[in-house]
């Protein structure tokens, strides 16, 4: 056996100075040579730990083994047996805390770059499908109809799995484009929209119908979908919801945005191309983003690319507690993002209705709080004013009430999220399942996909317990 290579193949990236001013993808992806070399490092464990770390249980050693035998169709098939959206997951999954965290090779050196290999195989498959579009084999129709609310990660995943099992699936999407957070939230430089579009097309090719401009709770309610529109079950994947604000003075000044608004303008509405695209965005000079998660990183890096002279993160805890992925933090630092740790805003200052500064306090870390992280406490007499002309709030979201308020008998927890069985996604309401951020609160793309997968399985079991109505249609 060859000696274990402890170092992973590096990921080529756009130069950090150049990319800070454009919206093109930061990481460029492996070539076939580097992908094969990286795959060669995998020891193909007979009892793979990595698979346990994957919320959708991708048979990781199987796809890597096929890849290193240069059997790309086989690799793609293994990958897609569990993951309908590999090119997306290969880019945005936090592999370092999931599959790669459990990699056996990682105990001695760098874990296998599973995410990068997934991206390589996913992208290869997308190119193959583009060059040689083939209609996937249609399963025997079950005659059952499923309504999926929301075309984000959980909805697309549940829809794809249910369509592959022969159910007739319709996704209702409120916005004019499917993708959910993949389209409105995650920027082009991290997840190109052409990739999202191609993965959505794949879901459509399985027979899933996607109806846009359809705001469930307004255009039609969940009860009407079940009682009047003839759907057998409904899956709710409505996403994270309404942006939170801090509740400090000055938050409604012109120049204060939620991260959702800022990113929706830039991504979904393509405001970076204004005036070629109609939706405007302010090209502010000194932008502060409040928060430390991935959404905050996306917002601050977008502000920089829109031409900010200084784009900074204002976070009340320290670097150690930063919830963003390490890779996003490193990329942001390389690009010149300023990090103001242990800093908490208390007021946004305005002049003639516009932001001119943000009053902040310095913090220091005290005793651990309920989350186990050391609680930030105010450093006395530390008040100072940050010179900014725009502030973006990236401090989380609260569930959107449009669906929950208009659905009878849907149990919610005290935060307003839907109560659902963690194993099956079944809600308290008959024939209704839920998954993704509407159940968990803001979480990751892959955890939403995992929830969509588990719900699809549970929905399938439920539907197949009932007598088949249109079984003869398939004959």
């Amino acid at each position: 056996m060859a000696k274990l290579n402890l170092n992973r193949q590096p990921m080529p990236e756009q130069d950090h100075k150049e990319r800070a001013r454009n919206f093109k993808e930061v990481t460029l992806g492996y070539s076939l040579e580097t992908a094969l070399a990286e795959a060669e490092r995998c020891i193909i464990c007979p009892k793979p730990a990595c698979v346990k770390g994957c919320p959708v249980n991708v048979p990781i050693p199987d796809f890597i083994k096929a890849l290193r035998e240069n059997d790309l169709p086989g690799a793609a098939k293994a990958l897609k047996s569990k993951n309908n959206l590999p090119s997306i997951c290969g880019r945005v999954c936090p592999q370092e805390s999931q599959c790669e965290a459990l990699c056996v090779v990682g105990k001695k050196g760098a874990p296998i770059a599973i995410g990068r290999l997934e991206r390589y195989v996913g992208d290869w498959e997308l190119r193959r499908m583009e060059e040689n579009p083939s209609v996937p084999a249609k399963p025997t129709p079950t005659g059952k109809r499923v309504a999926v609310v929301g075309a984000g990660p959980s909805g697309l995943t549940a829809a794809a799995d249910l369509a592959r099992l022969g159910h007739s699936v319709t996704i209702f999407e409120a916005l004019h484009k499917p993708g959910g957070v993949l389209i409105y939230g995650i920027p082009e430089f991290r997840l190109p929209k052409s990739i999202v579009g191609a993965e959505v097309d794949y879901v459509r090719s399985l027979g899933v119908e996607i109806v846009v401009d359809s705001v469930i709770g307004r255009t039609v309610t969940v009860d009407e979908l079940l009682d009047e529109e003839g759907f057998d079950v409904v899956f709710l994947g409505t996403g994270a919801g309404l942006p939170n604000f801090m509740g400090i003075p000055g938050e409604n000044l012109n120049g204060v945005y939620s991260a959702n608004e800022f990113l929706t303008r830039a991504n979904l509405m393509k405001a970076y191309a204004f005036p070629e695209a109609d939706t405007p965005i302010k090209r502010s000079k000194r932008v502060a983003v409040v928060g430390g998660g991935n959404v905050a990183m996306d917002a601050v890096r977008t502000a920089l690319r829109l031409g900010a002279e200084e784009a900074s993160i204002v976070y009340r805890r320290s670097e150690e507690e930063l919830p963003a992925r390490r890779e996003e933090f490193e990329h942001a630092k390389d690009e010149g993002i300023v990090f103001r740790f242990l800093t908490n805003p208390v007021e946004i200052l305005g002049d003639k209705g516009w932001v001119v500064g943000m009053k902040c306090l310095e913090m220091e870390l005290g005793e651990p709080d309920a989350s186990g992280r050391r609680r930030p406490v105010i450093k006395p007499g530390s008040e100072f004013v940050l010179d900014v002309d725009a502030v973006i709030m990236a401090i989380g979201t609260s569930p959107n009430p449009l669906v929950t308020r208009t659905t009878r008998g849907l149990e919610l927890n005290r935060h307003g999220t839907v109560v659902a069985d963690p194993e099956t996604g079944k809600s308290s309401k008959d024939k209704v399942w839920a998954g993704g951020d509407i159940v968990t609160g803001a979480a990751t793309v892959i955890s939403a996909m995992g929830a969509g997968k588990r719900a699809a399985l549970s929905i399938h079991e439920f539907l197949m317990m009932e007598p088949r109505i249109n079984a003869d249609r398939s004959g």
Partner: protein
Amino acid sequence: MYRILEREDLTDTIHVFKIDAPAVAKRAKPGQFVILRVAEDGERIPLTIADFDRKAGTITVVFMEVGKTTMQMAKLGVGDSLANFAGPLGLPTEVEKFGRVVVVGGGFGVATTYPIARAMKEAGNEVITIMGARTKDLLIWEDMMRSASHELIVCTDDGSYGRKGLVTAPLKEMLEDDCRIDRVVAIGPAIMMKFVALTSQPFGVPTVVSLNPLMVDGTGLCGACRVSVDGVTKFACVDGPDFDGHKVDWDLLLARQKIFVEEEKISLEHWRHHESCECSKAKA
């Protein structure tokens, strides 16, 4: 795609489209709005529903040419389609038997008071409508408003038709004459709604206004439409658009409506330039 079935030009710049949108028409109620996009890469703009026909599956919207998107929309005719049309959004206007209701409409906002006046009348209220415009040529839907009201008062700022003066003058007279008013509903430019609310406030008459802040998605996602009501931040798209006019922070609304004034000019110039190029190309 959402086809335009009928078009009517009320003035040079105010137009009525009847749109084929059965899913929206099915549940539309007075006071709700839609978000539409004219074309791909277009912005999402909110328009209040001016009328709906559940049987025919149509929604009527009235719009005024004020910027790039509305001017681009005005170039469309019967048979053309809008790229997107989502709704009905927002909460419907509260309609019940209040007694005597004064409906105040200004500019092209008059059109959006129509289904509300009609519903108030159907609910058994005595409906007095005050409608106004800058000048006679900008008055719209007078006959329709007359049919939806028990009494109609028309005002123009310049006195070219009806009473000379602002819509607040007849409202103030009614309130001062102590002719018991149970509710005021005002829809129009923010500045008009502000002064209607200020007029009725000393008399303690509940006054409902339909706020028109900037919006992007219109479903609660972005928070661009936040307004302050009674000192609390609300999202007009999901919590409104109707609010208690006496509790609205009007100056905040007026300031937030102006966030993108410069960009709106750039967008319009860019489009006009593009249009003129397209025309010259077509001619050549």
